[in-house]
C-alpha cells in the first residue's frame, strides 16, 4: 500500500513539474493562489479525523483542522477567481498604429 502511494506521489510530482512549467510568468500569482486552493484538499483529511474523534481533545483538534482547511479552500478559490477575472485582453477596440510585434499571445513557455 505504502509503495503504491509512494509511486503515485512521485508521478504526481512529475506531472506537476510538467504542467506548471508551462504557465507564463504573467499568471504566476494566480497560479500560486490556485495551487494554494488545491492544497485545501486537506479538508478531506480534516473531515476524516473529525469522524473518528470521540473526546474533547479530538473534537478540538478536528475543529481547528476543519476550520483551517475550509478557510484555505474557500478563500483560495474565491481569490483566484477574483484575480483571473481581472485579466482581460482589451476592453476598448485595439489602439491604432500598432507596430508589428511578435504575436502578443505567444508567451514563452
Amino acid at each position, binding site marked *: 500500500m505504502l509503495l503504491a*502511494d509512494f509511486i503515485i*506521489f*512521485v508521478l*504526481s*510530482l*512529475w506531472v*506537476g513539474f510538467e*504542467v*506548471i512549467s508551462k504557465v507564463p*510568468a504573467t*499568471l*504566476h*500569482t*494566480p*497560479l*500560486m493562489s*490556485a*495551487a*494554494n*486552493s*488545491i*492544497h*485545501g*484538499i*486537506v*479538508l*478531506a*483529511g*480534516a*473531515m*476524516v*479525523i473529525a*469522524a*473518528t*474523534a470521540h473526546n474533547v481533545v*479530538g473534537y478540538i*483538534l478536528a*475543529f*481547528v*483542522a*476543519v*476550520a*483551517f482547511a*475550509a*478557510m*484555505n*479552500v*474557500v*478563500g*483560495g*478559490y474565491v*481569490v*483566484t*477567481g477574483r*484575480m483571473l*477575472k*481581472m*485579466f*482581460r485582453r482589451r*476592453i476598448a477596440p485595439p489602439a491604432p498604429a500598432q507596430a508589428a510585434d511578435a504575436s502578443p499571445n505567444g508567451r514563452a513557455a
Partner: protein
Amino acid sequence: MTGTFNTIIQLVYVVAASSFILGLHLMNNPATARRGNQISVAGMVAAVAATTALVIHGKQISSTGWIVIATGVLVGGGLGLYTARTVKMTAMPQLVSIFNAVGGGAAALVAIRDFMTLGSHVGSSVSVPTLLDVIIGSVTFTGSIIAAGKLQGLITSAPVTFPGAHIVNLVLAVVAVGFGGYVIASPSLVGLGVVIAAALIFGVSMVMPIGGADMPVVISLLNAFTGTAVAMAGFVINNTALIIAGALVGASGGILTKLMADAMNRSIGNIMVGGFGSGDAITAAAGVAGAGVQSIAADDAAIQLAYASKVIIVPGYGLAAAQAQHEVAALADLLESRGVDVSYAIHPVAGRMPGHMNVLLAEANVPYPLLKEMDEINGEFARTDVALVIGANDVTNPAARRAGTAISGMPILDVDQAKSIIVIKRSMGHGYAGIDNELYTNPKTSMFFADAKKGLAELAAAVKTLVG
C-alpha cells in the same frame, strides 16, 4: 458492498485529482485560466462530497463530530470568503501566506490526531510520513505567519538576526529530526510534543532573518512545504486525493522557488541563511545625486513620451508601494490614444510574490497582452524610443552584466538599450543590492524626481495639455 463503495470513492478521487491537473494546465493561458479555476473547484466539490459519503458510510462519526465539521466549515469558510473578497491586490502575498499557514497547520493537525488515535500501534509506514507531516506542517504554519506579518509590516521587514542565530536554527533542526527519529522508533506523545515545539520555533527562526526583498522566494518555498505536508497527510490517512494534490502543489512551489531565486541571482540556501536584502545599505548612500545625473521636468518628459512611437514601461515594486498602478495605466491609455505603441516589461521579481506586478496591472485594467516577460521584451528595447522606469532599480542595472558586482549575473531588463530613458524616482537611493545603478548616470537617462503616483499624474496632465 463495502468493496464497491470504496471503489466508487477512489474513482471520484481520481476524477478530482484529474480536474486539479486539468485546472492547472488551463492556467498556461490567461484566456483559459478562469475555466481552469472553475474545473478545479468542481473537482474539489466532488472530493469533499465523496469524503462526506465516506464519513457517513464509516458509521464511526458521532453527532458531535458532525457539529464539529459543520461549524468548522462555516467559521473557516466564512473567514476565507470574507478575506478573499476584501483583500487588496497589493496585499495578495500576505493572504497567500496565511492560506499556506492554515493549510500547513491543518495538515499537521491531521497527522497529530491520527498519531494520538493509533497510539503505539503505528508501523513505520505510517509513523515516518506522520513525523514528516508534523515537522513540515508546523514549520510552514509559523513560518508563513511570520512571512505574512513581515509583508503586512506588522513585523519589521528587515532581517532580524542575532549572534549565534545559525547555531540556534541548527539545534532546533537537530532536535526536531532527532526526536522525530526517536518517536518513530518508540512512539510517544511527549516525544511528538517536543518535535512539534521545535518545528514551530524553527518556522519562526527560519523566516525572521530573511529580508523583505526575498519574500517572493520565501512564499514560494512555504507553498512547496504546504503541498508536501498535505501529501504526507495523504500517506498518513491513506488518501490518494491528498497525495496527488499535495504533490502537485509541492511541484508548483518548487518550480516557483527556483525561478524566483534564479531571477534574483541567489541560491535558495543563500536566501534561507538570510542577511542580504537587508536594506541597511539603502540609508547609507541615499539622497546623493552623483555627478553625471541629469534631471528632467514633467513637461519635457511628457514631450518625449507623447512624440515617441514606441514606449516601454518598466514597473517595479516602488510602483505598487506608491499605489500608482492606476496612474500608470491612465498615462499608458493616453499615449495609446495618440498612437504610441505601449507595452510593459515585467521582471520576474517585480513585486512581493511571483507574478505580483501582473496582477496589480491587470487590476488597473491593463490588457494582459501588453504585459511582456523579460525574455520576450528584452530584444525590443533597442527599437524603443522611450523606456519609462517607475520604481524599479536593481533589475535595470547594467552592472549585472559585469563580473565583480553585488548583482553580477542577475538577469536584468535591457533598459539601457532604449534610445532614451526616463526614470521616475524619489531620490538617488539604492535598491536592495545597495549599489549604484549605472543606468542613472547613462547620458541617455533623465531622472524625474517625484513620487510615482504624483509624478505619473503630472506626466499625464502634461501630455494632455501638450496635445490639447
